[in-house]
Structures are given as C-alpha cells and as structure tokens.
C-alpha cells in the first residue's frame, strides 16, 4: 500500500543526484543538504500519512533512504544526523534509547490537537466523553484528517488540549492509553 502510493510521490530533483547520499564536508553545503533531507522526510511521511520510522528497516528497504535506481543508500550515521536535526526542530521524537524507532511529526501535536478540537466542536462533542479509539478509528471520524492517526500522536495531541484546559484525558488500565477516553470542554 505504502509502496504503491509512494510511486506517485514527487521526488525532489536532489533525490536523483548521487552526492545527496554522501554527507558533504563543506559546512554550508552540508547544512543545505541536511535541510533538504529533513524536508524530504517530512513531505514523504505526510504524503503517505506515515508516522513511525524504524531506522533499521527504513535503511534496508524504504525508497526514502534506498535509491535503487542510483544504487545509493544513505548511511546510518548520516540518517541519524538528519533525524536528530528533525528532533531539535520539534518534528521528531525518539521512541527508544537506541534511537532506532521514532515518531515523525509532520504536523505538531498542537496542530493535531487543534484539528481534533475543531471536529469535536463542529460535531457537538463538547462536554461529551469520547474514546480515544473512536477519534482515530471511529465511524464519525472517517473523513477527518486524523483518521488512522497513530495512537501515540492522538494522545500527544489530546495532551496539548488538556494543557490548554480544553479537554481532560481519562486514563484507564492500559498504559499505552489505547483504552483511554477524553472529555472536551467548551
């Protein structure tokens, strides 16, 4: 599914430029290169509606890092450097200590929160309790952008709403919040 839609993804010109895969020594050029990679990753993830990146897996098979036409693969060091840059920009969050799995946030939790809150207020869910599940997989949200959103992203988005006093998360037994609920406030 992902590979099918990725064929329609418009790769930037740099993607087919071999030096793009080698970390540049000139610092100016390197900064531009990393910047271009960051944008590419965010655009690719946004286009394919992906949220989680497994570095080992991606370096092995994802067309994002593996250019089979050029026969180039991004090195793990360079990829880590780029991902850490995304992290410092607030667009990425590591999920493990080994820095292998990460959450790519092409929309920040606050932005997702705003979208969810907008939906809740448009559909009269203010002062009503919803399950987190029905937000990302319910019948009422099928046409919403956050439908199919990664659970952890939904929780993060709801946390920003909670910090603003616009919602209260109701946690249940599951630590991953898969059985949590939320109450929206007007």
């Amino acid at each position, binding site marked *: 599914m992902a590979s099918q839609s990725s064929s329609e993804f418009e790769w930037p010109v740099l993607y087919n430029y071999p030096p793009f895969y080698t970390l540049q020594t000139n610092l100016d050029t390197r900064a531009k290169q990393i910047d271009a990679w960051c944008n590419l990753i965010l655009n690719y993830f946004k286009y394919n509606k992906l949220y989680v990146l497994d570095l080992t897996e991606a370096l092995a098979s994802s067309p994002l890092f593996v250019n089979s036409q050029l026969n180039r693969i991004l090195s793990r060091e360079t990829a880590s450097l780029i991902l850490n840059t995304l992290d410092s920009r607030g667009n990425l969050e590591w999920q493990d200590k080994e820095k292998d799995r990460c959450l790519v946030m092409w929309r920040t939790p606050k932005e997702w929160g705003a979208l969810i809150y907008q939906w809740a207020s448009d559909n009269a869910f203010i002062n009503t*309790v*919803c399950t987190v599940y029905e937000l990302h997989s319910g019948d009422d949200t099928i046409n919403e952008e956050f439908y199919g959103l990664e659970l952890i992203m939904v929780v993060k988005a709801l946390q920003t709403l909670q*910090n*603003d006093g616009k919602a209260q998360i109701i946690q*249940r037994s599951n630590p991953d919040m898969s059985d949590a609920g939320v109450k929206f406030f007007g």
Partner: protein
Amino acid sequence: MGALLARIFNRDQQNAPPPINRAHDVSQQDQAVLDLKLQRDKLKRYQNKLEIQMEKERELAKKLLRDGKRDKAKLLLKKKKYTESLLEKTDGQLSNLETMVGNLEYAQIEMKVVEGLKSGNEALTMLHKIMSIEDVESLIADTQDAIEYQKEIDELLGTRLTQEDEESLLKELEQITQGEDEALINQLPAAPVGGLEDEIAPVRGASKQPEKRTAIAT
C-alpha cells in the same frame, strides 16, 4: 534523562501557560459513559473481525465448490450462517449500548436543567429574604407616617393665612391673569375690515378668517 527533561522543558516554555487540570470536571457519569463507549468500540472491532471472517469463508466455500467438494462447501456455508447470526446479535448489543449511552447523556442534561432551576430558586429566595414582608410593611407604615407628618406641617402653615389674606391673594392672581390676556390680544393681528380683496383665492381667505376668530376666543 536530564537532556530529555531539558528538552521537554524548553519545548513547553514556548507554549508557556501552566497545564490546567480539569479532572474534577469528569463526573462519575462521564466515567460510566466512557465504559459503555469502550465496550461499544470492542463490539465494533469484533464485528469487523466477523465480517472479515465471513468474507474469507465465502471465498473458501467458492473455491471448494470449484474443486467439487460440495459437502465441505456446505459445511463452511453453515459456519458462515452462524457467523452471520453472531453479527446480528452484536448489532442488537450495540444498539443496547448506544441506547444506554443516550439515556445517560440525556439524564446528565436533565440534571443540569434541575441544577439551573435550583440555583435560580435559591437566588429568588435570597432576594425574598432581603425583601421580607415585615420590612415592606414597616416601610409602608413609615412612609404613611411621614406623609401624615407632612400634612400636619402643611396644616400648621396653612392656618396662618386668614380669610382676608386669601381674598387679596385671589385678587392679585386675577390681575396677573387679566394682564396676560390683554397682552395676548394685543399680540394678535388686526381682523380684516373690508370684503374679500383677493378674488383669486377666495377659499383661502374664507378659511383663514374663522380660524383667527377662534384664536381670539380662546
């Protein structure tokens, strides 16, 4: 860990206001609604599973038929029938759950209405306390006393004027009003003496004259 905390701290500093905790705004009823909705989610997932299973069974039955294994296909269709009945049952359960959720949410709204009425009633009784009947009665009595007191004063002052004083007072009043009447008459334009001079507009002239006369009479 330190670096992580520092990062979280830095990030949160950008959206500075301190987190608001509204856990107390989640009532027991909300918790119950959540329980029901979680149950509903579980049922929906179960239904999805059943639907996928049914589709698989149908495909498999088709394949068995193609291969000429009629008996096995029949058995499989029986199983599919059973899955279908399960699906129908869960539909019933789902609607039960949703009715319950609806009832709970409606009861909460009703409670809010009652609360509103209650606080309105409290405000009203408080106002009534401030404005007790005894207070109002004594206030009216006080006002009555004050009026009577004023009357007494008036009477006391009124008796000082003798009958004579009263007469000269009335005379003076008449003189003043008479003077005013004469002044008024002098202000009026003189009434036309001759006949209608302006023959072109006799109607206008005719209508004007009686008007003036009535003005003098008053």
